[in-house]
């Protein structure tokens, strides 16, 4: 294919292989002996709309199914059915895997998503990846509640049967259609205990108060399963405040943290950890720099306004540091003492979970953790995989699974 460049130039590309593009990652994996310990990637992605026709086969509502199949018939990747979003993640193709993924070849007999995922996992030295959708990160904005329900049941059933059943190295946290609390309960009942189900996930981009009474039965159910609950960040350029910004970098920088900040504030201030003490919660893809802010801000205000938070038995920051966080996109400051302080503040050695977010534009290699000068070897290995093995109760056997090149 030909890629359009600046000043009407074109770049011809005959083939693309993400394993080759990640050859330097494989070299890092070998140099750092990643084959000596497990690495679990707690946040990675695929592009589910590339399999939309397959997913629609699982849609429970036959009328919506036909509407969606027709909308998708012109290869329009869900236009008219899925909420779209303006965004320039690929930076005009500078993140070259975005335009080139369509020409990447995979082997026959294996689902394309499994093949592509294994390829980058092996390149990076990752044993197990928790896989999430991409366009569906904005599904919480769908104006039709029933559409989120129908699409999420279809996706989860497709994912379970076509991916999780077929590949033990790929897990997922099941998408919950949070705008319909009853549907979430049905989802937990259907998927808890199924192969590859590592927990349950709420996409943060939506306007629902997590402390609303309608969700308490859901949280109890998830707590009883022993599986964690995750809030996965996203962006929404259509929101009024975000709409004041004119660049994707701005909307991404603030937006990917904003919704998790709101949900976390509600979660902690309404003392949900006291009501569900065994429920483990993970905050995904907001980076780490927001956490010292949240801890300091909420602790400071709580000391003055404790009458508004009667359910709390300890400081907000103490609840925050009991929860779990994925590392990507890890903000690396010029002054590394800031990052070191952040790690100390959030008890990273036990609470931090490495994530790549591959193939998105700001993915992080395991070396972002492994090369940190202020971490001891044990802490590196815990963050890269040990904490996830414990949290998700993973059984990955004695040997490494990744084919480190």
């Amino acid at each position, binding site marked *: 294919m030909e890629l359009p*460049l*600046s000043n009407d130039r074109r*770049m011809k590309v005959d083939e693309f292989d993400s394993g080759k*593009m990640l050859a*330097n*990652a494989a070299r890092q994996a070998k140099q750092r002996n990643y084959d000596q310990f497990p690495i679990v990637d707690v946040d990675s992605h695929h592009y589910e709309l590339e399999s939309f026709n397959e997913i629609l086969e699982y849609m429970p509502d036959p009328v919506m199914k036909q509407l969606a199949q027709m909308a998708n018939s012109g290869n329009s990747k869900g236009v008219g059915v899925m909420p779209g979003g303006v965004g320039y993640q690929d930076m005009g193709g500078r993140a070259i895997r975005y335009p080139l993924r369509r020409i990447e070849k995979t082997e026959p007999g294996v689902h394309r998503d499994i093949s592509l995922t294994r390829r980058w996992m092996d390149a990076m030295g990752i044993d197990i990846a928790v896989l999430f959708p991409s366009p569906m990160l904005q599904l919480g904005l769908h104006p039709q509640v029933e559409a989120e329900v129908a699409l999420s049941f279809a996706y989860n059933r497709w994912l379970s049967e076509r991916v999780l059943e077929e590949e033990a190295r790929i897990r997922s946290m099941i998408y919950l259609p949070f705008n319909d609390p009853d549907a979430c309960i049905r989802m937990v009942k259907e998927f808890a205990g199924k192969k590859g189900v590592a927990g349950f996930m709420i996409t943060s981009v939506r306007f629902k108060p997590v402390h609303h009474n309608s969700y308490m039965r859901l949280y109890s159910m998830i707590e009883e399963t022993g599986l964690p609950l995750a809030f996965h960040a996203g962006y929404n350029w259509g929101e009024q405040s975000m709409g004041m910004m004119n660049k994707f970098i701005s909307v991404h920088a603030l937006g990917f943290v904003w919704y998790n900040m709101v949900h976390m504030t509600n979660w902690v201030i309404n003392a949900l950890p006291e009501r569900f003490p065994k429920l483990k919660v993970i905050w995904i893809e907001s980076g780490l720099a927001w956490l010292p802010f949240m801890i300091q801000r909420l602790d400071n205000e709580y000391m003055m306004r404790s009458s508004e938070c009667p359910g709390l038995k300890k400081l907000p920051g103490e609840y925050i540091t009991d929860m779990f966080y994925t590392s990507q996109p890890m903000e690396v400051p010029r002054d590394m003492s800031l990052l070191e302080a952040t790690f100390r503040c959030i008890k990273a050695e036990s609470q931090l979970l490495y994530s790549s977010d591959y193939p998105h*534009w700001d*993915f992080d*290699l395991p*070396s972002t953790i492994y090369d940190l000068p202020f971490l001891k070897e044990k802490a590196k290995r815990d963050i890269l995989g040990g904490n996830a093995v414990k949290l998700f109760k993973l059984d990955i056997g004695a040997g490494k699974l990744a084919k480190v090149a």
Partner: protein
Amino acid sequence: MAEVFVAKVSEFPDGERKIVQHGAHDIGVFHWEGEFYAYSNLCLHQGGPACEGLIMHQVEDVIGPDKTWIGQKFSDSQVNFVCPWHGYEYDLKTGECVPDRRLRLRKYSVVRRGDDVFVSI
């Protein structure tokens, strides 16, 4: 000091790049507007193949005399090569990292002998 053969000029059109390896050295060589430039192919960010992505002119804002934003254009003179992993942009003529010019890739000398192009390590 070793000289590593890159290509014949006749097989190295202007506007293209070649990658050569020699021992631990992984080097990107660019042919741009009649000159050759060579840099370490290891991105300063997370070690990606810095020289293997797009070659793009620098994006510039056009600001009017009244300080209003008029639009954007591609630079007439500055061209960058962009690491395909995360978009780190490097000035093709100097190897400096465009958003922070205190960072730069190691530059290698390019030697031409007749039709042959070599990089000096």
